């Protein structure tokens, strides 16, 4: 019985190979994590450096994302607010609106009557008492002008504005979109910054992981030599180092996510206080699922590539003495 058993198990059968491959990988991955946890301080420091490096671009991304959400709400606002002369009543205003709707540049005109404007103003709060004191409604009729998309370039809007100002019933016209476009440009700038910073710090992560793995390889020279002596394949020897790199990446990515989430939690209070002062419901949004996925996958890849570079440089050609 014993003899039969030993013969059967002398070499792996072909059918067992995928299982062996999988269990070897699982074992290596878990063993590598265990080894990293055995030296928590150096591991923690490497992970923290990676985490901070990744948290910076991630935080900037969150900032840009939030600013964009905030700006999204303003996109619906009219390009030009047309304040009519105070004396203009709703009937006259309606006529003006009708006239404007015929213009080719204009897609839509929305009339805000004096009562409606007062109601809105009241709803903003803080002004009730002041309004109580007033006998008359101090607000003029406002026409919100939405230009067609073809006419919303800054120069064209300016022409339109001048054309509107020439109307006798118009008191003044305020352009609402110019600063929005500037804001949009700033957002684009931040977005480019995220990419640049992300690229640079990603390179940094690559170097950190590469160097950490290089030191680890040097530390375990003797062990590697002995493994080669007893017939370990090159891939078997490389595997734990590659897994270490991937673990560093994963842990670093999680740290980055944690840092950004903590920062958002800390800022949430003051942001909502600020928002409430502006009568806004705006709340900071954190890293979404997809952004988090990108960070984690990216950090794992960075760790893997970093360790792969180190492994290829320092674990090569030891097979022959």
């Amino acid at each position, binding site marked *: 019985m014993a003899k039969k058993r030993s013969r059967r*198990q*002398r070499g*792996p059968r072909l059918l067992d190979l995928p299982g*062996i*491959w999988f*269990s*070897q990988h699982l074992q290596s991955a878990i063993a590598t994590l265990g080894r990293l946890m055995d030296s928590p301080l150096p591991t923690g420091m490497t992970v923290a450096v990676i985490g901070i490096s990744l948290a910076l671009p991630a935080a900037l991304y969150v900032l840009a994302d939030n600013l964009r959400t905030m700006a999204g709400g303003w996109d619906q606002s009219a390009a030009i607010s047309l304040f009519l002369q105070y004396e203009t009543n709703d009937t006259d205003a309606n006529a003006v609106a009708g006239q404007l709707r015929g213009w080719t540049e204009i897609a839509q005109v929305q009339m805000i009557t004096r009562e409606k404007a007062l109601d809105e103003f009241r709803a903003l709060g803080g002004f009730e008492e002041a309004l109580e004191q007033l006998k008359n409604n101090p607000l003029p009729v406002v026409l919100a002008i939405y230009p067609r998309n073809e006419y919303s370039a800054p120069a064209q809007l300016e022409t339109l504005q001048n054309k509107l100002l020439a109307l006798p019933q118009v008191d003044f016209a305020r352009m609402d979109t110019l600063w929005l476009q500037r804001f949009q440009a700033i957002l684009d700038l931040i977005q480019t910054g995220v990419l640049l910073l992300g690229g640079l710090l990603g390179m940094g992560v690559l170097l950190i992981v590469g160097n950490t793995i290089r030191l680890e390889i040097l530390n375990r020279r*003797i*062990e590697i*030599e*002995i*493994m*080669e*002596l*007893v*017939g*370990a*394949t*090159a891939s*078997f020897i490389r595997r734990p180092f590659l897994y270490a790199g991937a673990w560093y990446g994963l842990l670093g990515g999680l740290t980055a996510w944690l840092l950004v989430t903590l920062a958002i939690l800390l800022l949430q209070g003051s942001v909502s206080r600020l928002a409430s002062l502006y009568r806004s419901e705006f709340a900071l949004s954190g890293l979404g699922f997809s952004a988090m996925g990108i960070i984690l996958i990216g950090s794992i890849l960075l760790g893997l590539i970093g360790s792969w570079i180190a492994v290829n440089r320092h674990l090569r050609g030891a*097979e*022959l*003495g």
Partner: protein
Amino acid sequence: MIRFEHVFKRYPERGEALTNINFEMKVGEMAFLTGHSGAGKSTLLRLIGLLERPSRGQILVNGRNLATLPRRQIPYHRRQVGMIFQDHRLLPDRSIFDNVALPLVVTGLGQKEVGRRVRAALDQVGLLKRERATPVALSGGEQQRVGIARAIVGRPPVLLADEPTGNLDPDLSREIFELFERFQYVGVTLLIATHDLALVNSMQHRTFTLEDGRLLNDTGRW
């Protein structure tokens, strides 16, 4: 099992280490390799384990021509050749069990089977009770026996030993050599480099003598 055909090994720094070596060992044969230090004993063993390649000539081990063996196949060749070193080459921070298990772990053998075989190997060298200890806690003789257990745990058909008793007293040396003889009985081919001539002469096995890289004397099959 092992055949050398006109094998030369030349190092750029040291010149010729082995010159025109020819011999053949049959399956289950045990032989000693003697000679002064620097005569080329270690080099010869390193060639068999493919730690190095010969400059010229052919080496066949277990039907494999080492000259044409691709690099990727070297690990699989080494699993067929157990190697024992004078300095043991154990991992100081691992237990005896883990040290002996290493050749099995690298092949991807299941944990249960590894445990079974490691204990069998430790039992053969009489160290079953020390599996939890680390190498530093062991005496020189015990450490060497751990090295032997590691060499035989994968049941290789060929066993090479480079001065396995170099640091041991005569009694311990004899014990180790008797252990080797037991492996020979089960069909393992053994080549043992040693300069312990007294022991070699008392044991009556085939003996190769190397001098300045040349095979001076081969007592033939005993």
